[in-house]
């Protein structure tokens, strides 16, 4: 029986899109659950930052097998930058990694990201969305540092939730 590649790929791509959407919806549903259980004195930002810290620690473990000090600091930074970009791509973002001005820095550019749209749909603030993402990425970098004994840093230079049109993050030593 002949394979119809258009049909097969379209079906897979559609399913991927749905799964990506479900992941984000689930996050916000859990956020709402936590806030309701914690009661009126709870702070959404605290809940969200804790979530992304937990997620960051867990996701970082997936990256450890691919991080290799023998590639040198420059190679390590690019590999980690690509891994960080991958966390966005897996969720439906369009993310590109570029070399920075110096050899020990990489720029990670989110040209498009669905998270702010979902945050709006579920009534979460843009500040919360931005700080949550920052926490996630910072945690991964901190875990990588703890694993490899490095001293890498990540900073946010531009952010879609702040109205900059792109998220631009600098990973550097």
């Amino acid at each position, binding site marked *: 029986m002949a394979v119809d590649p*258009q049909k097969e*790929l379209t079906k897979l791509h559609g399913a991927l899109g749905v799964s990506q959407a479900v992941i984000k919806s689930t996050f916000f549903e859990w956020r709402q659950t936590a806030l309701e259980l914690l009661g009126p004195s709870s702070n959404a930002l605290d809940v969200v930052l804790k979530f992304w810290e937990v997620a960051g620690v867990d996701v970082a473990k997936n990256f450890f097998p691919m991080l290799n000090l023998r590639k040198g600091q420059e190679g390590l930074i690019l590999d980690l930058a690509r891994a960080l970009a991958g966390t966005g791509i897996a969720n439906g973002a*369009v993310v590109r990694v570029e070399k920075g001005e110096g050899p020990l820095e990489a720029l990670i550019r989110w040209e*498009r990201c669905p998270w702010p749209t979902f945050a709006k749909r579920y009534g979460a603030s843009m500040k919360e969305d931005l700080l949550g993402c920052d926490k996630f990425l910072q945690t991964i970098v901190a875990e990588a540092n703890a694993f490899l004994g490095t001293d890498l840093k990540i900073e946010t230079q531009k952010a879609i939730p702040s109205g900059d049109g792109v998220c631009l993050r600098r990973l550097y030593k």
Partner: protein
Amino acid sequence: MGKLLFEWDYSSYPGYKKYPHLFKPIKIGKLTIPNRIKYAATEDNLNAGDGFVTDAGVGYLRERAKGVVGGLCVMQGVYMDEKRQGQGYVGQAAAWNDKFIPGLKRLADAIHEQKAIAGCQLMHCGRVGGIETEYCQGPSPVSQRLRIFRPVEVMSKADIKQCLKEHVEATERLLKAGFDYVEISGIVGYLLSNFVSSYTNRRTDEYGGDIRGRMRFVVECIQEVKKVCGDVPLGIRLCADELLDDVGGNTPEESMITYEMAEEAGADVMSVTAGWQESIYPVISRDIPMGSWLHLAERAKQHLKIPVSMAYRLFTPDLPNKAIGEGKLDIWEMCRPMIADPLMPKMVLEGTEDEIRPCVACNVCLARLFRDAPMTCYINPVCAHEWDPKYEIKPAEMDKNIMIVGAGPAGLECAWVAAERGHEVHVYDTREELGGSLIEASKAPYGDDELYGQITFAKTKAAKAGVNFHLGTEVTPELIEDEMPDTVVLATGPTYVKGTAPGFDRANVVPMLDVLNGKAEVGENVVVWGNLKPGIGLALFLAKQGKKVTVVGKERKLGKDINPSFKWRYVGYLRDNSVPTYNDSEIEEITDDGVTIRTYDGYRIPIKADTVVCTVREANPGLKDVVQENGIELFVIGDALVPRNLSSAVHDGYRIGIRA
């Protein structure tokens, strides 16, 4: 004969002879209406946010009152509670306090100034209400199908009593304001219909149960309001078919029981409607043929002694005239045809039907209301600006010689308006026929042929205003320099562009207009490049011919240039015709076998295609430089300025027509 408020004699008008049944009097309760025409209550979001009537609202209604030539003109439904639970639209008029009476009187007076019957409507929006609250009211806690509506808070018996009291008090205020006719709205998902429907009323008390129980609230409402109406007739709007069979709504037979019970309770006239906002079936969009719902009025007539009125795709006078003559209908209602042309029935009476601006049943008027925006009309640029002198067609201060390049909808609109103002207008087009690319657009299926009515209208207006046409004539820089007009209006339409990917220069890549005109050969497997309205219309045109069509486009969402109240129809038809759509995608390459597309997130998908049709448009600055170099006043309008849609073309044309 009942009470007659204004004397009208139609016998000398051409429309009286052509449509005799439309201009016969009819009695509603104790009131005689001189004709069979009703402007049906329509929300317009033109009132202040706190429910007070505005100049814009008065201006809007005055124009419609003029249009009904002595018939019934009904203001929009009012909400009646201070908590605003019944409010369904941000600009809905209120009647919950005496402080609203002066504004309401302005509306009644505006209608009376035109010697028309002033109608008002009570409208608690129920399940689709609570626009300014966190909840809405309803008989039972049934989840909303559409996300935009509020969660339902169940009405207690005390709430029901309070609601009835508010209906009565609002009626008293409306009568003090001078209205001659009162109507209760129980349709499309508003509160009364929520009680009536087995879908939304799951109560087990006396206000629920079988159809008689579910009608109890409506019956009490009619009886209570009737008590204060005195000799003023009372009408009601109820669904003849809810079109909610997919969620367990009423059967058509149950709906007829509601009609009989409403009549028994004291209703003097029945306005027949179909469908809810939550219905999954289309009711009033242009893909539904005109006259499709007349069988519901006919059925209502078989069950009632009181007069029956109906709107719902009765856009031309021949349909209601015939139906009234055959005893299937008593009164011709209109909303959208009179949004598009407020004087429509007046023109029918006066025998100038060919000058009526026809509604294209696009529902942008509804889409605006649901998005908290003031009423507007796709093809009537003056709609909701009737009060504003800036929108009037006034004689020009200085006569000009105006050259309009392009006889599409933008150019034609500009032409007739400018000519009516006294300018000498010359319209040029390389085609031999008026209409521009709307000629091709009207060939798309599912009612798009109705779009061409805009050209017929503008053609007539232009001819009567003395516009000079130069068809089959290309405007060159030399022609402009020879003619040296005072003003040039570029309405040339867009340019159609190919993509830049490898393969776009192949012979099997053809322009959209050639396909619609039958000039290009199209294979069995077709990729339509462009996911806006032109691409969608073309895809459906080809799919109806049995082609296997795929739509690919760069826009993130399909048909973002189509208003949401109509887009769902196109989406449905694409699905029905098995047309896959790839939005947010680029064509990466066109080869012998077909097309490779690249999705926004980098995935590549091969699509089998014999032919690629380009529908992507760009602005067309064309002759702009030569006009400006010669110091001639220049306007660029319609798709030549920015490719958009028919509405933008017409609105651009009108605005420049009144300004040039």
